[in-house]
């Protein structure tokens, strides 16, 4: 589904990714762990299409197409969704309206009929219920004045509404209490299917207690330096990121 090949990317002339390789197949959940500054968030933003990150070399192929040629909204239309590490406040824009416009834009791009307000509200309520979330978030402006936990819940609500083919969670777990963490995990696990893939970027192993990854990667210095199964995450948790640095130096 996703093939990242020798990816080099920089921001403001500073190289962040230095030859990253990653292959994700349908049905798989991959976790990427790594210390601060290793390039985790850069990878997610490059995948989502943030223009200030410049890809200097390498390629990203998504479902057989060159992902780098697509605008952010086209990537969303093709089924890519990134849950933001820091969701953006949009004052004055009602959250329900935003969710409705987003879903309809994607449905339209896919050639599906747009949903009217009644059908949309029915759908959004069912998603909220499945995630044990209340409707309070719907009436407010997009992320405006939301607590950290509310912002992340809103990201998961969007993900469950948009039903992406490839979901990228950029440190969605950071700063969350255990209840919010369970909502995130529930959102991910509900979406899990043989047709979909997920990329879970996290600093801590904690989230992986609730989301079972198929593959765990360790990112350091802008490239993946080790990949393994779930036990790699536990090893990392036990030994700390210092161990990775030592590992790298030894290699």
């Amino acid at each position: 589904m996703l093939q990242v090949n020798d990816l080099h990317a920089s921001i403001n002339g500073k190289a962040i990714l230095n030859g990253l390789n990653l292959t994700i197949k349908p049905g798989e959940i991959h976790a990427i762990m790594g210390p601060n500054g290793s390039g985790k968030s850069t990878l997610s933003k490059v995948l989502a299409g943030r223009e200030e990150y410049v890809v200097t070399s390498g390629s990203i192929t998504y479902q057989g197409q060159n992902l780098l040629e697509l605008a952010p909204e086209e990537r969303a239309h093709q089924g890519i969704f990134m849950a933001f590490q820091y969701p953006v406040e949009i004052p004055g824009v009602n959250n329900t309206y935003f969710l409705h416009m987003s879903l309809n834009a994607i449905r339209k791009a896919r050639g599906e009929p747009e949903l009217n307000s009644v059908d949309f509200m029915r759908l959004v309520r069912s998603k909220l219920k499945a995630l044990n979330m209340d409707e309070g978030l719907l009436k407010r402006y997009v992320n405006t004045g939301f607590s950290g936990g509310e912002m992340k819940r809103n990201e998961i609500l969007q993900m469950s509404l948009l039903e992406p083919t490839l979901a990228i969670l950029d440190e969605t777990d950071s700063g969350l209490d255990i209840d919010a963490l369970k909502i995130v995990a529930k959102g991910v696990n509900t979406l899990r299917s043989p047709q979909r893939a997920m990329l879970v970027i996290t600093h801590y192993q904690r989230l992986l207690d609730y989301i079972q990854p198929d593959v765990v990667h360790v990112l350091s210095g802008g490239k993946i330096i080790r990949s393994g199964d779930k036990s790699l995450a536990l090893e990392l948790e036990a030994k700390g990121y210092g161990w990775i640095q030592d590992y790298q130096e030894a290699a």
Partner: protein
Amino acid sequence: MNTPDILHHYRQLAADQTTMAHDWHNRRQLHAVMQVQELPLPERGQESWRYTPLPPLLDTAFQPAALEQDLLFADDIEQLRLTPAASLRIVLHNGFFLPELSNLPDDGSIRIESLRSALANGDKTVQAHLGELSGEQSHLFHALNTAMLGEGVYLHIAAGAQLAQPIEVLHVSLSFASEYLAQPRLLVVVGEGAQASIVEQYASLADVLCLNNTVTEIFLHAGANLEHSRLQNESLRTRHLASLYVQQAEGSHYRNTTLAFGGAWSRTEFHVRFSGTGANCRLNGFYLAGDKQSHDMHLNVVHNLPGCSSQSHFKGILQGHSKAVFDGNIEVKPAAQKTDARLSNANLLLSRDAEIDTKPRLEIYADDVQCSHGTTVGQIDEEMLFYLRSRGIPHAQAVNMICTGFADEVIGTCGWESLENLAREVLARQLAAAMVAGG
């Protein structure tokens, strides 16, 4: 026309009034005629006119509008009205009060009549208040409006009245003549403890070229509460000058939301002062300046007594070759301890060719006060744009949503849905048009 020609023109118009058969009940009108002969044309040396040279805007010798019969019909009002058909409605056509198209009250708690007839009947309130606020520190156009006072409109809400429905004030610009001068004049008195709201709209039914010079004076008695929403959506050739004077007595509340969309040039002046303590004034404003348009907003809020509060919150979106001026002046006099005054202005520039001159000013002469001011000028936030696009929303629609949201924080304070929706429609149309034109 150069400055001397312009001055000569308006001085002549004012002087002509003295040859008319007016009954000079109102000494202030005569005084205003004299003022017009002496006052200079506002010029850029004056702080509040610094960014807007007037001569290019007054290049035409605007002639006083005449009352044109059989031009405006009930159907037009039906089309323009923003309140239910049965609501109280004051209709002005090129500044002339049209009782036959208005919807006037039959109960005693609300009075709507022409200022001229109230003066003729010796109404003490009107005699005392008409020109009381606008006469102070007036500039040429305030004086001109008073000097050339026609019928005018007097709205009085009796003490204790609680109005469930808003009173609509509808200004319609429509004429066979071109290059005319309209001068609407309103006096609003809200009695003690009364509660009311006014929905005011300035609309053009044709692409008229006019100078609309309006003066409104509002007096709130103790404990009165007035919600006042104004939409200016005149033709793109109109020069619109609106001067609003408010005096608030003890414990009164005034909320104004002004939305400026139309006109080649519009200037709205808000003059607020207090005649009692514990009063609150909220001024909200939004301006949308499209290509070749300019909007000026001038605030002059004077905290002259202790314990009053004011919140002024203005926002603007500028497109193409447009311009806006925000000149927000809050003065806290030495006696005005325990004042709470807030002032903010935020601007969104959608074009490199747009110009905003923003100048919040706080002059504080008391020591025990809470005051703040802030200004922002920016472009569309890239983070917001990316967030919306990453959710599948196309670029143009995302820009539209951000702008609409930005404006809606002000539009949404009107408290009258049909006015808010009309404003949203006008905004959406203009944003879409600019998008097609490429910015």
